[in-house]
């Protein structure tokens, strides 16, 4: 007869924890080969970015400290900060900044207000009709600015031009300071309106239709839905357009200013972009042009930074 061990309880042991075995050493070459693909994919883009963006930027910084008339045969002379000093001494600079501000304000209806209204109204246009309408709205952007400028010049002719005949006025649009600025704003606006409208349409299309469906069941009228739901959700798109307008308004108007008014009459349409072009390639003062370019670069950079910060705080992204 065997003697039974006294009965007792023992815990069920948890599976044993085993220390990780030493990692197998991977040869350096193979480690590099494994890590390389993402960088290789990025390489062409980065190379182009370097060649077309950062190298010119560095060259501009260098140029802004030199005095050079763009002639390959004449030497560039180092002049320190004198280009910058000259720039702030000239009255053109601040005047051009002011005119650029007017241009930006004048363009906002074309890049924000009208596209939003048209986008909201055109939401119900669908299918083939939507394609046709979008193509029509987008068409001005496809017209070469110089070609557009030629037609507008003809239409704005003080004697027998279409605009004066329709308005019943005798304004000499391109030769009087005020009207010239208005003409540049309207033509630039006409040019970018289609683009802005498409951006707004894309923004609206990106808003989940369930929100407005839900709002309508929650008792919201169409106007309440637009004001309380659609517009706040469209705010990232609108702030993008605002940023684009602030940063690119002068650039958009450049081909028109250059072909129609040449910055005139008496500098009335000379914005910052035209000004720095005129310094460099009109007066052949590469250093002054580069210095102006640097100032605007920093200025617009700061504006963009502030706006992006503001946008992040004020707009709502649909998660």
């Amino acid at each position, binding site marked *: 007869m065997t003697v039974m061990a006294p009965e007792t309880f023992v815990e069920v042991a948890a599976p044993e924890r085993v220390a990780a075995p030493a990692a197998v050493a991977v040869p350096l070459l193979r480690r590099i080969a494994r890590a390389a693909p993402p960088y290789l994919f990025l390489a062409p883009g980065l190379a182009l970015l370097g060649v077309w963006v950062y190298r010119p930027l560095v060259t501009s910084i260098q140029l802004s400290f030199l005095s050079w008339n763009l002639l390959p045969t004449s030497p560039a002379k180092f002049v320190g900060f004198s280009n910058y000093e000259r720039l702030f001494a000239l009255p053109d600079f601040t005047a051009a900044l002011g005119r650029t501000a007017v241009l930006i304000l004048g363009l906002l209806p074309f890049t924000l207000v009208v596209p939003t209204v048209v986008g909201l109204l055109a939401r119900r246009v669908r299918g083939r009709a939507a394609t046709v309408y979008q193509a029509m709205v987008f068409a001005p952007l496809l017209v070469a600015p110089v070609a557009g400028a030629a037609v507008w010049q003809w239409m704005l002719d003080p004697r027998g031009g279409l605009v004066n005949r329709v308005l019943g006025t005798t304004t000499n649009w391109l030769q009087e300071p005020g009207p010239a600025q208005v003409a540049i704003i309207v033509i630039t606006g006409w040019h970018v309106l289609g683009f802005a409208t498409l951006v707004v349409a894309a923004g609206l299309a990106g808003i989940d239709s369930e*929100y407005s*469906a839900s*709002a*309508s069941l929650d008792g919201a009228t169409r106007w309440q839905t637009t004001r309380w739901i659609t517009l*706040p959700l469209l705010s990232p798109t609108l702030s993008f357009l605002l940023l684009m307008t602030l940063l690119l308004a002068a650039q958009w108007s450049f081909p028109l200013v250059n072909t129609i008014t040449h910055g005139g009459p008496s500098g009335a349409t000379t914005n910052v972009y035209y000004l720095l072009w005129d310094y460099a390639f009109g007066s052949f003062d590469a250093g002054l042009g580069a210095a102006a370019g640097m100032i605007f670069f920093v200025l617009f950079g700061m504006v963009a930074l502030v706006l992006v910060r503001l946008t992040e705080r004020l707009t709502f992204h649909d998660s």
Partner: protein
Amino acid sequence: MSRIQIEGLTRRFGSGNHAVNAVDGISLDVADGEFLVLLGPSGCGKSTLLRMIAGLTPPTGGRILLDGRDITAAEPRERNLAMVFQSYALYPHLTVAKNIGFPLRTRRRKDVDAKVTEVAKALGLEQLLDRRPRALSGGQRQRVALGRALVRDPGAFLLDEPLSNLDATLRTATRAELTDLHRRLRSTFVYVTHDQIEAMTMATRIAVLNGGRLEQVGTPEEVYDAPASTFVAGFIGSPAIGLLPAEVRGADGELRAVGDGVDMPLGPGHDASGREVLVGARPEHLRIGTGAVGPEWRGTVRLVENLGGEEVAHVTVGGGRVALRGPRPLGLAVGDAVRLTCDPDRIHLFCATSGRRLVRTPEPRRAAVAV
């Protein structure tokens, strides 16, 4: 308090040869205070039907009445219905409090704050009122969506798969809460789901849809115990009922359904037409047979699944498959030849061509004998 009547509601998408009837002539009468579940697989038209009730999708034909008032052409906001969307559709730029208060704000109600606090308290959302939807978990979002529906005492609640984005544990808990909510409010609920467990546990009545048409409308018990078609039989119940082809034969006044590996007495009768049928029984009603009488399935065990408390044996019978579910261990191993049986009243019989359930018409002859 709302009764929803649907009469011949139809929704056609596309035109010409490509037209599809997403909802095809559906009529339903949802009584006040009922919890009606629209159940069916994806693409069966259940969501389209709900969106037509909500007014989000205009019907191609038919009428919708709310408390006898024709609302077919009414705007969604005029319908006094609240809806919980599958995506919840919480306004991402508004806080939880603003989201819940939205339906009151659109009506310019004065008591927004008080009502929002009341609803938030009932749903345990007081701590989250200042958060935006992005900062909420799936379960919290679901509650906010529910809160937004509750806040204005709507005539009826429409819910479109509200639990499908929750994990299994939360889904089970929320199911019980919804049932509880329905009992407290005594409101009309119309609830869309493809989940048979949600339908069985919450519904007072289930409407099973397939291909835009109603297959069966009944209580969960009716739908489970007496499925009206092979579709309903197969869609509800897990593992699915195994239906096998057989032929009705009569001999000596007794009817039998006989097929490959299947032989079952159907009781007295004279329908010796050789009618093609499908027969089956729920997996939990099958058992391993011993006697020679009663329904019989003969086959081979192909797979035994362990569910923890129970086991499911998949048995090949003839060309088809039946499942048997019972307490573990069943005592079956793969490859075993097995005879299965069940109580005769547990047999489901369907017409092989139409797929509709076959029921016995009253049998006067046997009554005469008994007398």
